[in-house]
């Protein structure tokens, strides 16, 4: 339940609502950056690695640790599970009327 999966911030989608896009093992997903944005604002976050929990970036982490955490999650069978949840949610929203 408290699982965090590493992702890399690849763009800022909306600076006002602090939404960005992270890449989690090749899957892209919008996440909220409110908990990791510093005084410099969200723009400086592009390229940073963060621990993502239920669609929120919760902590900045270094790239080496991100790689290792991903590997551990893969071994636990939890990385695919998490990515599958992200995909399923996108699909569910895609079917909802705009």
């Amino acid at each position, binding site marked *: *339940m*408290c*699982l*965090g999966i590493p992702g890399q911030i690849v763009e800022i989608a909306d600076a006002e*609502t602090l939404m960005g896009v992270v890449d989690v093992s090749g899957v892209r*997903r*919008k996440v*909220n950056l*409110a*908990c*990791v*944005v510093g005084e410099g604002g969200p723009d400086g976050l592009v390229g940073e690695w963060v*621990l993502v*929990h*239920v*669609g*929120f970036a*919760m*902590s900045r*982490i*270094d790239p*080496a*640790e991100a*790689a*290792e*955490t991903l*590997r*551990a999650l893969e*071994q*636990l069978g939890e990385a695919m599970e998490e990515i599958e*949840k*992200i995909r*399923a*949610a996108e699909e*569910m*929203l895609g079917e*909802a*009327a*705009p």
Partner: protein
Amino acid sequence: MKYADEFRDPVKAKAVLAAIERAVAETGATPQEPLRVMEICGGHTHAIFRYGLDKLTPAAIEFVHGPGCPVCVLPMTRVDECLEIAERPEVIFTTFGDAMRVPGTRGSLMQAKARGADIRMVYSPLDALELARRIPEREVVFFGLGFETTMPSTALTVQQAAREGRTNFSLFCNHILVPPPIRALLDDPDMRLDGFVGPGHVSMVIGTAPYDFIARDYGKPLVVAGFEPLDLLQSVLMVVRQIAEGRAEVENQYARVVPSGGNPAALAAVEAVFEPRDAFEWRGLGEIDKSGVRMREAYAAFDAEAKFGVGYGAARRNSRDADLPELAGCRCGEVVKGMVKPWACPKFGTACTPETPLGALMVSSEGACAAYHLYAGVRARAVDAESERAVS
């Protein structure tokens, strides 16, 4: 890779295990009178079994599995209340997948969905809010479940909904807190615990100060731990060393992710949206003072309890799950407290399996029963069932 070397190296693991062995010997603990170390977090329980750390560590350490699995401690009556909301025709009920199979007295959300209720699994509360934007004629309710790790996400989502002036989005708040049940367990005269492995991602939000009472008032060590096998082994070593040296402190093994002060932005959102309830019921533990939160008056428009007149204290509740006929013969309560191991329960692995769970501890992969069933069940039952049943 730096971290691969640091956290996976079997030579390092061996060195840590040897150090644990020496430290345990200094405490005088024996396999008959082991040190009882509680890992609070369900993620740690899962990792301990996945990596077989319980087998690698000395027999003079017993891992006691804590209540840190939110779906495992969710009372059946709260699931009933979810169904009450979800079965309303105007409602789209959204939830994390983990909660779908948790049984209530009238069945699970999965069963309600099969009967026609509009229940959808989401990855994030943000997905629920997005659904509310896309389908404005329906009421979208998000089932807010989880500890301090998850609370900022629902708080920030509610704040965003408020900024947008959304009127068809609400939160069914069932968030619970880690420190109060630990105090309750420490106050329980039937429990003997020697130290704690503290939760990693809860602490990333709240920091380490909320655990100070465990060391100060109860004289027990706690070490906040990461989720890698070597993280857990190092944390166990730190706990055992404290015991061997007669210290009781809060230490942080997971400092690379957990700042001692927690995450100020996350805490500010939580503080703005939530306030403590007088008490909240935990499956197996009963009601615990100030252990859950509800939404503040300022966000009442987004509170599903207020919106639908359903909620904690409103529905008839049994004070203990043991009173409910569905759980007759189950020992979920004692397992969730760490008083008995899952295999001491007569339903474990027979009537209650991950495919047909009777209790929530068998539903979640973080629940002690599911972890035992997956990774340790057969071994454990064969070796220990007799002795465990004899003493319990």
